[in-house]
């Protein structure tokens, strides 16, 4: 029976595919405001990061990262569903958390698609400048670009939204970018497991907050 690493090589999955995948999924998380598409992009991102890591660290550890990601996305999905996704689904995807639904004022009403596309371009330029001027130690340049890209995209998503269900994937993306770097530097299994625990519990906290907001939305509707 082939080992996981051989299996990945047999499938022809290489690091570059993971890097491109992380760039695309990061861009989607910033551009798309429909939370369902965002969750799919987040799932894709964990798989892409898993592909990158599988080439650089023992595949078993890379697999843990993918499994954590595979748990995170359903948790967020279930939270959104349990908190009344029917209410959220009725709303314009461009403004899923308008004042009418959440009872809260959208703090950034001008963050339309054009604005986010421009922000995306600037983030890409910044990531390439950073990887050129401040290469990450012990990390191949293409992987370093992915790290910077995911961290910056995550921070920008956090800046553009204050709603847990929309900004939560941004926070998770920023942490994934950091973990991509940190996993290559730190080999301690205790810390890796603790990081996985942080990710899962963080998702539980985001889900909890999303559920609270969903209940608010349902209350508004009734």
């Amino acid at each position, binding site marked *: 029976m082939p080992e996981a690493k051989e299996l990945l090589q047999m499938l022809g999955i290489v690091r570059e595919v993971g890097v491109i995948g992380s760039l695309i999924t990061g861009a989607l998380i910033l551009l798309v405001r429909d939370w369902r598409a965002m969750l799919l992009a987040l799932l894709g991102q964990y798989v892409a990061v898993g592909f990158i890591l599988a080439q650089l660290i023992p595949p078993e550890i890379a697999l843990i990262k993918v499994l954590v990601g595979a748990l995170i996305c359903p948790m967020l999905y279930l939270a959104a569903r349990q908190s009344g996704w029917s209410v959220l689904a009725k709303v314009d995807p461009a403004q899923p958390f308008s004042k009418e639904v959440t009872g*809260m004022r959208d703090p950034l009403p001008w963050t339309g698609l054009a604005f986010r596309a421009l922000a995306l371009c600037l983030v890409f330029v910044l990531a390439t400048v950073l990887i050129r001027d401040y290469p990450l130690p012990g990390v191949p340049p293409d992987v370093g670009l992915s790290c910077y890209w995911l961290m910056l995209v995550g921070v920008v998503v956090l800046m553009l939204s204050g709603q847990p269900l929309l900004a939560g994937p941004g926070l998770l993306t920023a942490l994934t970018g950091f973990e991509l770097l940190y996993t290559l530097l730190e080999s301690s299994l*205790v810390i890796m497991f*603790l990081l996985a625990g942080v990710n899962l519990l963080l998702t539980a906290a985001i889900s909890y*907050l999303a559920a609270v907001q969903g209940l608010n939305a349902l209350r508004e509707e009734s």
Partner: protein
Amino acid sequence: MIDPPLWLIILPLGAAIPVYLLRRWRFGSHLAAFVSIFAGILAAILPPTNPMHLVGRTFLLDPLTQYTLAIHFIASAWLYVAGQPLRLGRHFLPLGLCISGLFAVAAMSRHLAISSLAMTLAAIAAVPVIQDERPGSVRGSWRFLVIMCLALPFFLLAAWHIDLYREDAGHAVYLPQAAVLLALGFGLWVAAFPVYSVLTTISAFSSPVSGVLVLIGFPMMALTLLGHVLAEATWFSWWEQTGRMLLLAGLASVTLGGLLVSIQRTLRAMLGYAALFDLGCLLIALAVQGTQGAVALYAGLATRAIGLMLLGIATDTLLKEVGEDTLAGLHGIGRRQPLTTVALTIGSFTLTGTPLAAGFAGRWLMLRDLVQLDERWVWLVVLASLGVVTAYLRALYTLLRVDKITPHASHAALGLWLPISVSLILSLAAIALGVFPNPILRVASMLITLYPLPRLIVQ
């Protein structure tokens, strides 16, 4: 055989499950309070121990950790007792215990990566505590979660740099980077200027008692870990720069807190800005240590807990009694709740360091140290204190007004005698420590001998 300090981790974490099951009954809160107070006494009286090894990492119960954990555990116990009749959410007691256990892990660990991960887990556990099952805005808990999680990468990278240096001194070239990363991480954790809005939103959007649990614990543990780095890290040598940064952040926090508290219209928002003001004073006390070392800081940590508990319990009692905490809606309520009104006033005086309140001695020492550096800064702190005092005197005036009594639908069927009794005891303690500050100053002086912090700004 389990090392005795490990009980400080095991006890609160182990008690969380039975407390969760018993949370609906008063016994649940009493059990949580009993475990917490027992752990607090244990933290205070344990003799010095040798370093322990757990999962390959070193753990040590030093005097500073003993002191801060004892304060946190005992303050938590009071809040658990007072919180049960105030109908806090079902997560308050069990997750409060989990947070305490994780604080013990963070403070005893001598590896920054473990400490920062434990602090982040504690922050995640604090989210339902802050939200407290309330409908409405999630802004306070969300902002807190984001800031605490964003600090984690800085600490993990700093820890990696330090580990490299420990393995090979040739990596000393990375130490300045580690210092910068630590500065960023601690800046986020302490939540002083410029990320102070974390503190103020927690207070404004949470139940006061559960908010106070977070406002006491997290900044205190961040200062404890900063103290460990300053006192124990042999590689750290940027004392002067650290001192200047702490002084700047402290002065900015004090000014903002003192200035903005006076324009707040709700008691919860005022509590957040008063906490910011006091945190600024602690940072100044750490930065500017005079001839007596960090006595002002050590004394300030204890009096901050008393002041915040008083403000939190009193604010929550009024909130439950009236159903709102806007000043406009509290006209005349002070006459129906005189003890709570007194507790609110004494709590604010304790935080501002007014004479005859518990915070006075520590604040006086801090100002005496600060005047050696620059007299103008002393005036700045005094003016900011006046801002906080004025804001709470305005609240007192509103609470006692007889000409414009708002008709209140009494919600007092909850039986608020327990939180009122707790606030009465704490008020008496605050006054006693204000009139006779020797016990707290003696403990702080003892701690200076056992765990001296380096002087950061040489005057």
